[in-house]
Structure formats: structure tokens, C-alpha cells
């Protein structure tokens, strides 16, 4: 009995041990699961990166219209041909090659490249691989018809920019793949994204690009897509980019580019009452479509190498001495400062002797001239005298030449010179207006006077300005005392254009001083330096200029506005290496004005148009530099 009991107790102990073993097992796993599932968060991220393919849905980029609501830039679909190697069974290789218009050898090479792990690190037999990128819509149509014969082939749509005309490349700018630097700067972008790289596309990138959407797809272990996560409940829809309307008149732009054909230079036209840029011609130009799609990088490299620098955005980047156009600035400042008035006259003996022996030359015209006459005939001497009176002979008023110069400089700066205007355009240059301290550094304090810097009086020497600054000057004079910062934008869909383009910049010069200047400019067109530019039945104002060019033939400049009453267009035309302003810049500007205001060119001036469009001016070095 005792033995039976002991045996029973022993069995019972063993039973308890086994029960404990079972409980211990359960406890081990519950603890382990607690660590895996509750305490450790990293598995969740691992799982998400395993299973979720976050596919970006690209929004349609905003469209761009011109001021007359013509669609200028739109989107066109192109197609990448993709292959899934694993599914390519019974593949009609020859038919496929014929459809895409490639040879069997090219096909084989491409397949080899795809499978090359070094060239294509993301290769997998299960996922689509790019076989051929950006085929045209017509090839796509052909392929689509025969798709059933090519198992494993699929296409992926991409959107590229499409231009309605081969003009306005500089103004419109282009869209290109983001660089690593741009990715680092803005986390919105990832590799392979597109971004506006110049022109309007760049400035208004944020408006045009819209907001990317995300589609969360489920990806299996082989990389195959198995549907949408939660039926798309967590997807984010893309927001289309905003459409833009530009102030640009594409017809005028096109016309300007045709007139500049074969020449280098710029045309900037501005609507004075708003500051909207009507035309922004940089010549030589190129077809914006060149920088789209597969050929983009090859074409870009070619344009970059071109000696005539077609990629250089001359209207906003080229800085020239403004030449005689700058006399208008001087006339306004000297009047306001009381140095001269409408009746002040200075003699001109084919120039202005600022020392006994040194002369700033001038051309043949009657003498003496009053202010309007000095503008009409572009007399250099007049401005030499006036500058001398201002800087050297008014010391009781200003105290010193330095002070007088600074008064002058403030006026000039207020007219939009010396600093970039702040247009809605990338890479704008500001030109140069020296500070008095800069002259102090060069010549020494109080060791310079009007004669030292005499060439600034006629817009040469140290003064540099861009064509758009000169066009802006024309607008300022047209408005008799104010301007709006020039801008290319007219309307943003569902938004307002930047405050700064709606702000009037008023220059501290009385309106009556503008009247004299305008009168002088009117005379210049009627019977002065710009008389080749006359348009029947139109009274308009203009001023020629010649920018001295140390590297070659002088640049021809014209600036003006039309009509004189209620001006609609202010314009600056630069033709490089073409010599005196009247020869090329004047007719081109006048044709632009006529085109814009009348819509067409009068019959008797068509020969001028023809000559302008057909003539070619090659840049040539000065005789002296040729050697």
C-alpha cells in the first residue's frame, strides 16, 4: 500500500512537471511574440517597404497661353516600351523589331544591356524593364495593334512638353530632368522627375508642376503588382498644375524672331501701362522642341557648343553700354535738378572739348541745339556740357563732385538701372552704375570730376545695362514718370500674380520734364536719327544708340514707344555688330511697332521687312583686332 502510494505521488509529480513544460512552452512563445510584435517597431517599416510600392502619379503640368489666349505650351504623351522577360514566351521577335523599326541586332544588344546587372542594377525577370523610351504616338499606335503577338510587352506613358510654334524658346524656357543638386535643395523632387530649367518654366515651376499624387500598390516577393492597397483608400490624388497666361504676344514674338534672323541681338517689347512683356527675342534662337524628349541632351550639347551662343538669354543677360539711349536719362535728371531746362542750348563743334586738347566727338549737325534738338540729333557735346555743369559747377549746391554724383546715381538707380529689375525670369543681370566710392578707389578721393567720367554722359564708359532695362526706360518715359517691373506673366489660373508686378514704381521727376524728352524723341523719329523708322499716320517716339563694343563692330540700338499719345508698346532693339543704331535697330523696331499696333505691315514698307528678314550680320572683329 505504502509502495503504491509512493508510486502514485511520483507519478503525480511527473505529471505536474509535464504540465509545467507545456505552460513554459506557451509562455516562451507569448514572451517572444511580445518582443517581436509589441516592443519592436522596426518590423513594421520592413514590412511596408517589402510590400508597398508607392507609385507616383504625375500631375499634368500647367499649360501656357499667350496674351491672346493662344495655347503655346501643352503636354504630349509619349510611350516607353517595357518588357517583362519572364513573360516573353512565344515572342515574335522579328515582328516586334519591324513594328518598332529596329534591327534584330539592335534588339539583341538592347536585351543584353537590360540583363547586364552593372548597367541595369534593378534588373529582375519579373518586373517591367525599359526597352525603348519615348516612342512617338504613331509608333505606339502600331505597337498597340499588334500587342497580342508580343507577350510580356507593355507600355508606360510619360508626358513631355509640346510647343505650338518653334519660337519663344528663351522666354518659355524648357523642362528637364532634375539634377542631384536640385534634389538636395527641394525634397519634392526625386530622381527622374522633371523640373522647369529656364524661362517661364523655371520661374513658375511651383505653379506649373502641380502636386504629385501617390498610388500605393501591393508588390509581391517577385516585384509583381498585385493590386491597390486598401482599394486605393490611402492613395493621394495628384493636383494638376495651374495654367499660365503670359503677357507675351506670340505673333509679335514670332515676327521679332524672323526679323532678327541671321543677326545677333535682342528685342524687348513691354506694355507700358502694365509692365507686361510683349516680346522677348534673343537671337540667335532655337526651336524649343529641340530640348524635349530623347534628343534633348544631344541637342543641348550642340547648342551649348555653338559659337553664337543661342542658349545665352541676351535680353536679360547681355550687358552693353546703353550708348545714346542713356542721354534721355541724363536729360530727365538734369532738368529735375535744374541744371538745364527745355530752352538750355549748348554749342557743338563736332564734339565737346573737356580739356584744351581732348574732345568727346560728335557728328555733323546744326549748332547750338536746345534740349529737344539734342535728343533729335543725339548730340554728344550737349551732355558733356550738362554733366560738367552738374558735377563741377554746382559745388555750392552739392558740396562736392562726390555728392553731386550720388544724387545723380540715385536717380539712375530709381529708373531701374544698376541692379536687376526683378523680372520673373531667371538669371537676370543688373548692369553697372558705379558708386562714387568706386571712382574714389580708382582715381583717389576728390581726384575725379566730370571730365574724368565724361563718357558716362552719353551712356558709354563704365555704364552697363541690359536690353530689358532700356526697354523699361522706354516704358518709364512713355508713362511720364513711373513703371511696373517688367514681367512675362499675365494671369495665373486660380491665383494672382505677384504683388511686385502690380506695384507702380514712381520716379521722382516731374511730368513736364518728360514732355520735352518725348518731344525730342518724336522729332528723332520724324526728322532726326531715327527717321528711317517712320510709320505713316503714327506719331511715336524713339531714340537711337550705339553701344561701343571693344571686341568688334558696335552694336546698334533703338528704344522707343508708340503711339506718343496713350502708348501701347515700349521697345528696345539691339542688333549686335551692326554699327550705327539707325541702320538696323530702327527699322526692326519700327516694323515691330507697326506689326503690333496695326496687325500688318503697310505695302510700301514690305521691302524693309524683307531686307531685315533676309540680311545676315556675321560678328566680325574690328580691323585693328583682326591682326
Amino acid at each position, binding site marked *: 500500500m505504502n509502495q503504491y502510494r509512493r508510486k502514485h505521488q511520483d507519478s503525480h509529480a511527473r*505529471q505536474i512537471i509535464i504540465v509545467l*513544460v507545456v505552460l513554459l512552452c506557451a509562455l516562451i512563445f507569448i514572451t*517572444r*511574440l511580445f518582443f517581436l*510584435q509589441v516592443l519592436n517597431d522596426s518590423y513594421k517599416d520592413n514590412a511596408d517597404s517589402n510590400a508597398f510600392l508607392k507609385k507616383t502619379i504625375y500631375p499634368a503640368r500647367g499649360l501656357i497661353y499667350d496674351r491672346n489666349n493662344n495655347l503655346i505650351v501643352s503636354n504630349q504623351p509619349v510611350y516607353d516600351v517595357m518588357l517583362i522577360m519572364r513573360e516573353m514566351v512565344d515572342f515574335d521577335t522579328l515582328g516586334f523589331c519591324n513594328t518598332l523599326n529596329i534591327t534584330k541586332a539592335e534588339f539583341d544588344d538592347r536585351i543584353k544591356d537590360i540583363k547586364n546587372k552593372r548597367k541595369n542594377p534593378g534588373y529582375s525577370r519579373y518586373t517591367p524593364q525599359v526597352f525603348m523610351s519615348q516612342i512617338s504616338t504613331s509608333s505606339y499606335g502600331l505597337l498597340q495593334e499588334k500587342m497580342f503577338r508580343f507577350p510580356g510587352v507593355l507600355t508606360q506613358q510619360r508626358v513631355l512638353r509640346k510647343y505650338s510654334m518653334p519660337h519663344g524658346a528663351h522666354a518659355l524656357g524648357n523642362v528637364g530632368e532634375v539634377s542631384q543638386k536640385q534634389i538636395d535643395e527641394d525634397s519634392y523632387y526625386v530622381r527622374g522627375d522633371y523640373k522647369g530649367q529656364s524661362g517661364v518654366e523655371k520661374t513658375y515651376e511651383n505653379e506649373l508642376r502641380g502636386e504629385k499624387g501617390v498610388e500605393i500598390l501591393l508588390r509581391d516577393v517577385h516585384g509583381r503588382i498585385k493590386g491597390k492597397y486598401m482599394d486605393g483608400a490611402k492613395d493621394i490624388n495628384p493636383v494638376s498644375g495651374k495654367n499660365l497666361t503670359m503677357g507675351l504676344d506670340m505673333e509679335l514674338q514670332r515676327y521679332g524672331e524672323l526679323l532678327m534672323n541671321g543677326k545677333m541681338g535682342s528685342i524687348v517689347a513691354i506694355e507700358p501701362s502694365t509692365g507686361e512683356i510683349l516680346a522677348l527675342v534673343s537671337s540667335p534662337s532655337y526651336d524649343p522642341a529641340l530640348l524635349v524628349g530623347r534628343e534633348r541632351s544631344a541637342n543641348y550639347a550642340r547648342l551649348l557648343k555653338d559659337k553664337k551662343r543661342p542658349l545665352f538669354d541676351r535680353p536679360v543677360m547681355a550687358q552693353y553700354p546703353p550708348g545714346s539711349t542713356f542721354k534721355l536719362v541724363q536729360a530727365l535728371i538734369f532738368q529735375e535738378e535744374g541744371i538745364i531746362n527745355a530752352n538750355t542750348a549748348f554749342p557743338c563743334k563736332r564734339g565737346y572739348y573737356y580739356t584744351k586738347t581732348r574732345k568727346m566727338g560728335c557728328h555733323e549737325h546744326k549748332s547750338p541745339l536746345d534740349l529737344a534738338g539734342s535728343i533729335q540729333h543725339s548730340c554728344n557735346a550737349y551732355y558733356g556740357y550738362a554733366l560738367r555743369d552738374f558735377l563741377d559747377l554746382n559745388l555750392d549746391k552739392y558740396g562736392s563732385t562726390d555728392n553731386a554724383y550720388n544724387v545723380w546715381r540715385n536717380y539712375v538707380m530709381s529708373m531701374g538701372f544698376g541692379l536687376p529689375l526683378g523680372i520673373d525670369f531667371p538669371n537676370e543681370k543688373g548692369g553697372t552704375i558705379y558708386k562714387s566710392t568706386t571712382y574714389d578707389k580708382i582715381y583717389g578721393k576728390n581726384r575725379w570730376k566730370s571730365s574724368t567720367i565724361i563718357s558716362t554722359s552719353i551712356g558709354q564708359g563704365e555704364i552697363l545695362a541690359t536690353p530689358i532695362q532700356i526697354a523699361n526706360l522706354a516704358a518709364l518715359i512713355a508713362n511720364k514718370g513711373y513703371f511696373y517691373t517688367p514681367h512675362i506673366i499675365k494671369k495665373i489660373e486660380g491665383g494672382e500674380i505677384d504683388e511686385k508686378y502690380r506695384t507702380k514704381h514712381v520716379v521722382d521727376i516731374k511730368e513736364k520734364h518728360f514732355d520735352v524728352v518725348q518731344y525730342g524723341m518724336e522729332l528723332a523719329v520724324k526728322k532726326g536719327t531715327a527717321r528711317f523708322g517712320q510709320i505713316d499716320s503714327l506719331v511715336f517716339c524713339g531714340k537711337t544708340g550705339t553701344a561701343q563694343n571693344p571686341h568688334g563692330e558696335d552694336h546698334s540700338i533703338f528704344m522707343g514707344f508708340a503711339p506718343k499719345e496713350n502708348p501701347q508698346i515700349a521697345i528696345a532693339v539691339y542688333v549686335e555688330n551692326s554699327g550705327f543704331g539707325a541702320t538696323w535697330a530702327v527699322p526692326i523696331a519700327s516694323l515691330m511697332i507697326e506689326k503690333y499696333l496695326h496687325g500688318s505691315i503697310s505695302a510700301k514698307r514690305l521691302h524693309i521687312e524683307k531686307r531685315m528678314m533676309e540680311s545676315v550680320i556675321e560678328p566680325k572683329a574690328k580691323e585693328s583686332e583682326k591682326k
Partner: protein
Amino acid sequence: MRRNENILKMLDWWTIGLYLVLIFIGWCTIYAACYDYDNAEIFNFSANHGKQIIWISTALILGAIILTIDSKFYSNIAYLFYVLMIILLIATIFLATDTKGSHSWLNFGAFKIQPAEFAKYATCLCLSAFLSKSQIDLRRNKDLMLAMGIILLPALIIIAQSETGSALVFFSFFILLFREGMNGMILILGVFAIVFFILVLRYNNLPDAVVGVDVPELLGFILVFAIAVITALIFLRIYTKDKTCMLTFLGINIGIYAVGIILANFIPAVKTWYFAALSIGVSIIFLFIWGMVMHRQTYLLISAFLMFSIALSGSADYAFNKILAPHQQIRIKIVLGLEDDPQGAGYNVRQSQIAIGSGGLTGKGYLNGTQTKLNYVPEQDTDFIFCTIAEEWGFIGSTLFIIIYATLMLRLIFLAERQRSAFSRIYGYGILCIFLFHFFINLGMVTGITPVIGIPLPLISYGGSSLWGFTLLLFTFIRLDANRMEVLQAR
């Protein structure tokens, strides 16, 4: 007639209920694991979840048939069945076609059967019949050897079929032997063997990546020897209560270690493991002499334990490298953290842990698991099925699942203990062992605490052979239990 009326009342509906709950959970999980976003049809018999409906239906019929068979039948056929099974197992080695390197599947047209699955059943019945004989006493070495023979014979044949995973299940019968009177020390030594094996593998060859601090050379040996000496001291305390011996023993070892640590610190050429070896060596000799002097076998046995420790740790590397197949070696290395190969051999384990871990506290919801559904977890409806449960139901759900499973196992112990017939009791413990082993290894491998051994989670994993096998095991026991009032089953 009366007996048939009674049997329904006598059936243990708790166990049947748990069985039904588990196969239901199993089917739902298989459905979730095979769930295709495009094809969610339930009765799709080409998909595994559809086929499982067939397996479940047939398993239920099988269970019902088993319940109608007279309970004496099982004890009567036990030996015969065992012998036939051994013959079938041997035949299978030659008849089976090569399936991923293993020769364990017999093809009958469209059907495939793995005899090893049923060998467990035969062995369990045979052991029950053998151990329930009144003259058998596992305290006797001869009887113990016979019992071990019954267990190891099919295991060895199955190893010869290259199905090591299935063969390991047979070792779980040692728990049964323990319940039936085998000396517990054997199990304890077994546990020591495993611990020593792991320590030597883990700490003798620490890869550079794992080592953060300076560790002594052959750290594995040092740990094993130290643990063995401490264990010997505990044995002395329990089995001899000889204070003089214990104090001397302790003094000698502390002395050796103290000198060793000081010397190793000052002389770089002197390694710590020299003194660990010296300590265990001196301990063996000391206990041997003490035993001879005192004329007591206990000291000699403890001395033998220490020798066993040295032999085991010395041969661990050899056994690991020469006996285990390369894929087994790497699985063990991965679970020990000696190797990290998330793309290769470690892929399964890594992905299953991601799936489980990503379930979080509450899970992603039924049919919302991403890792299992998108095939990141391999064998997701068979061996790794627990991942789907854990991913979709989270910590709360999987804990509940473990509780249900543990409840079934505890219920089996309860049932076994209430048997009046030794045959039924032993059989009950036999199937408990099988369930426990599968449960432990399967969950262990998916959670990364045991090496990957490809065995299914009973009643949950997809597969006909497995479901039939476990139904057979369980319902036989339920049938035996229904007859528990008939005392004279065998003994």
C-alpha cells in the same frame, strides 16, 4: 446497442470542440494565406484553401470511422501495425521518388503519402502496448533500452529517408518515458547536452561581427566547464550532503580560478581556458579518488558527469561539422546568430519575423496581411502558417491562439491522467508529446528561437497527410477515452 448510445455521451466533447476550433482557424488562415486579391473564391478546388476543404471533410469522416471502431482493436493491432510500418518505412527508402532530396513520399497517382506521418501513430500505439504490460518497469535498464529501441528504430529509418525533421519528433517520446518512470536524470542530462552543445557552438567561434568586447579564447569551453563544475557541486549537495567534500571541492576550484584569472591578466600567453580545463580535470580526479576512498558510487557518477561534459563539448564541433548536413548547419548557425544571411538561408526566418513583427499589438485585420499574401513568407500555408495568424491578428490574437493550443495539450494531459487503463494513459501522453514537439519546433522556427526544421503546425497547416495523421492520433485517443470506464483494457 447500449454501448453505441453511450459512446456519444462518453466522448470528450471538449477535445472534439478544441479540435474543430483549431481546424476552423487553420482553414481560415490557409484561406487568408492563399488569398489572392483577384481571386477570392472560397470553393476554388484548385487552390490550397479549396483543397483543404476536401482534406477537412475526409478527416472528419476518418474521425467518425475511428470512433466506431472497438477500442480493443488498437491495443490488439499495435505490434502488428508497428512491424508493418517499419517494413513500409524501409520500403519507402527504395520506392520513393526523390522530392527535394528526401525519399519519404510515396506516390499513388495523384495522391502522395508520407509514411513517416503515420509511423508516429504506429510507434505511439506500440509503445503504449509495450509499456502497459505489467512486468515492464522503466527503472530497469533492460526495459528502458527496449522502449528506446521502439522509439529509435523508426527514427533512424526516417533519418535514412533524409527527413531529419520528422525523425526528431520521435525524441519527444522521452517525455512519455519520463512520465512512465524513466529516471528524470536522463532528461536533465539531455538538456545539459543541448545547452553545452549550443554554448560551445555559440561562444567558441564568435564571428568578429558579434564580438563587441574582448572575449577570452574558447569562451564556449570555459562556460561549459564552469557550468559543469557548478552543477557537480549542486549534485554533491543534493545527493551526498557531504559538507567536507563540498567545501574541499569548492576550495580547490575557487583557488584554480583565482590564480587563473590573475595570471591571465598579467601574462598574455596564459589563456583563461587553461584554468577552466585544469579546474574540471582536477575536479574529476578529486571526485574519483573521494568516491574510491568513501566507497560510494555517487561520487563516481558525478565525476562521470564531468567527464561527459568534457567529451560532449570536445565533440560538439566535430558532430556539428561531420554529422549535420550543410543546410542544417547553416540553420543552426542562423538561429545562434553566428551567421547572417537575410537573402539566402536566413531569408525564411527574417521574412517570417518581419511578418509576425509587423502585426503589432492588434494585427492588420483578417485578409489584410501583406507579407504573407504577397508571398514574402515562404511556405506560408504549410510550415510558416503561424505568420499569417500573427500578422493579421497581432499579439492579442496570436496569444489567444497559443492559449487555445495549450488548452488542448493540457486537456490531453487531463484525459490521459483520468484513464484507468495504462494503455490509454500512455497513448494519451504519446500524442501529447507529438503535439508538444510540433508546437514547440514550429512556433520556435517561425519566431526565430529554434532552427528551421520543416514540420507542420498540427491541425493548422495545409496538407492532407498531416491533417489525417493528427486526426487519426487524436480521435483514437478520444475513442480510447470514451471507454475509460472499462478498467480491463489491457492490464
